[in-house]
């Protein structure tokens, strides 16, 4: 069942340098209880798409068009008062940097019980009891004492656990996690991801996970959307994306990560960098970096299509890629082949160097 439906969302930032189109005509849906991943490099529009859902885009940014439906209600048409009832209650968020997400002058416990009192109308003592339970649930030992600790008395991993406790405090339908483990060490990351996975099941919460790390996506998500320059370039189930990627950018991304046990092979790279969002390339935005680009790619903008049939697909498609190769516009075929797994462990496109 569909929980969140984002249709044709466009977000622009009006900066002194020019108009940045951070998210361009983006559509996606998240089902109840689904773990939905958004992956891409910096500047792809991942975070902006997440912040838009909670209407947290600040000046000079503006949500220009589109709709964001939560259980059929358009969040963009809500009054400020109504949206405040959604934030932290039906939709909550975990930020990358737990240290800045926590207020240093309130105790951790007060910060966790605040949304419980506010949204669920618990009394002070009831809220405290629930906050202590939550601290215990997210794996913080000695929760009774820890309730009155200040954020600086927690380690980085524990701070992130506290933020997760806060996010889960009102039993949300959707949890948006924006790079929740990027600032953490690999051991702490493993523990937090484990916890997030377990809690999402326990609370039956849908997760929108934003990350640049394909390893994290592979571990947590059911469905993935790859973003590039504010647009989705590919959407697929996690298995399809890793074993049968359809967009040259996805392939390039996978080929450029070092894999353990791959031997002394040279990394494949995507030449160049993500374009400036003030002045994106015409046609397919990826064409200047794409090894398969042809003249038509500089002129014709590809839509999200089903790679098997070439027909345009909507936001809720199981499979989609935006590349002209699937609409018959290219003279040549995409020639990458993909092998993931024990034998060789490589995803390869055409080498560019």
């Amino acid at each position, binding site marked *: 069942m569909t929980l969140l439906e984002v249709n044709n969302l466009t977000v622009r930032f009006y900066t002194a340098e020019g108009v940045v189109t951070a998210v361009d005509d983006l559509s996606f849906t998240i089902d109840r209880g689904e773990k939905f991943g958004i992956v891409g490099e910096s500047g792809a529009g991942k975070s902006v798409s997440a912040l838009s859902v909670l209407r947290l885009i600040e000046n000079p940014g503006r949500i220009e068009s589109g709709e964001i439906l939560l259980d059929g209600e358009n969040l963009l048409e809500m009054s400020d008062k109504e949206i405040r009832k959604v934030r932290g209650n039906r939709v909550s968020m975990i930020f990358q940097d737990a240290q800045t997400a926590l207020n240093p002058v309130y105790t951790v416990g007060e910060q966790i019980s605040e949304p419980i009192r506010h949204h669920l109308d618990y009394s002070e003592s009831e809220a405290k009891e629930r906050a202590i339970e939550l601290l215990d649930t997210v794996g913080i030992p000695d929760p009774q004492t820890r309730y009155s600790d200040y954020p600086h008395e927690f380690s980085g991993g524990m701070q992130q656990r506290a933020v997760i406790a806060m996010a889960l405090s009102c039993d949300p339908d959707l949890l948006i996690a924006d790079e929740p483990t990027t600032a953490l060490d690999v051991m702490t990351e*493993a523990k937090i991801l484990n916890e997030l996975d377990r809690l999402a099941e326990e609370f039956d919460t849908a997760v929108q996970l934003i990350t640049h790390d394909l390893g994290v996506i592979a571990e947590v998500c059911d469905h993935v959307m790859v973003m590039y320059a504010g647009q989705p370039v590919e959407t697929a189930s996690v298995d399809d994306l890793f074993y049968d990627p359809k967009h040259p950018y996805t392939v390039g991304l996978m080929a450029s990560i070092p894999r353990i046990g791959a031997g002394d092979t040279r990394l494949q790279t995507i030449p160049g960098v993500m374009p400036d969002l003030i002045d994106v390339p015409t046609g397919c935005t990826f064409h200047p970096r794409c090894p398969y680009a042809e003249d038509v790619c500089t002129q014709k903008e590809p839509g999200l299509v089903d790679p098997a049939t070439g027909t345009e697909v909507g936001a809720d498609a199981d499979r989609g890629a935006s590349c002209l190769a699937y609409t018959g516009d290219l003279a040549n075929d995409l020639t990458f082949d993909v092998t993931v797994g024990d034998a060789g462990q490589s995803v390869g496109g055409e080498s560019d160097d």
Partner: protein
Amino acid sequence: MTERDQPILEVRNLSKYYEMGGSFVDSLLGRKQEVKAVESVDFELYKGETLGVVGESGCGKTTLGRSLLRLIEPTDGSIIYRQEQEDGTREEIELTDLSSSALRGLRRDLQYIFQDPFASLNPRMTVGDIVGEPLDIHNLASGEERNERVRELLEIVGLSPSHAYRYPHEFSGGQRQRIGIARALAVDPEIIVCDEPVSALDVSVQAQILNLLEDLQDEFDLSYIFIAHDLSVVEHISDRVAVMYLGEIAEAAPSERLFASPKHPYTEALLSVIPEPDPNWVGNKILLEGDVPSALTPPDGCRFHTRCHRIIPPEEYDIDQDAWESLRNLKLRVPDASSVPDLITFGRKGELVEDEAIEELSRLDEILRSAFEIPSPLSDPTAEDHLSEVVELLHGEGLDAAGETLDELFVSPCETVSPELIETERLHQVSCLLYDDEYRSGGLEVPQTQSDAVADD
């Protein structure tokens, strides 16, 4: 041993302690606290080789890298650099004895690439001046020759020579890192310490920089010390890898061997938790207890013993490592807890309990064992007796008495004996009592070769 086989850099017993700013009274009384950021580190670096240094944040990687070049002064130890002379022989230079002017001269051979490409370039200098500055300082080139060399360097690292007149803010993160690399290359160095050079970059750009570093190594016969927290990056670029934990080297081995058959339990655990970019990958993740302890008060004995999943049980008891790990967890948590119900929440399976629930001794015993995953009964009757005694004390007298008894009766050799870095195979060094003949016995489990981690070769 021939000249060729001698390491270009040899580090012995290198330590760096930071003094903590205690209170005024503390300093008057001569009391001081020290953070032992790096302690007694030994390693060698050979010509043309990349030595990777990995570890979690706070393990002393960066301090190690900076002490090597004396960007911070090491507290103790020796760093021998073998400088190539004009006749091809190598002269030994002890870096820790050098005056600062002699050291400045040596910076021609020893260079550093910084983590943050945004903070390590002067925003008020043009790229040409940033890359040309080392040439000026060391009087390597001037005038048109200098400008020519700057253009050449920019080309080597994949930038356009016309970029020499631009300022750092006009470049992306990856390009800035290239500028930093060009600056390091300007003096034609022998050794470059790369401190997390790609961790601020996106994956596609990271791959470009890693390839560039490899190409430059081949072209100029450079030796790298590559510091990073990302294990797959380190595996990719390094010939040998040293794993650090709390300021010490836990294990060092050729890269392939370390990743295929880690010997130190810490390495084993670290490797097990790398998020694998493969949705169907199933591995047994070893999630270590707790956080890295503070370097201000590192644990006695093996520094890893407070989190080790393969901790050695004392000889007098016949119990396995898993059961002992559980007992160790209980023992470590008792001093942290403020009450008995509190103690139970510290267990991996521990949940909040009411005081009434543990009023009866047998209930407490049951709940405590399940919280800490302690077998009931323990396989060794003496150990079982001792544990029952502890639980009774916990029930009757409280935490302090139970803690004392635990400290008295359950002591692992890992808590008291500090392991040496021993060579188990050629070039494979590990600092763990599991490989010490005195403590090794038949029943102990050591990390196994990870068959699925080695695909080819």
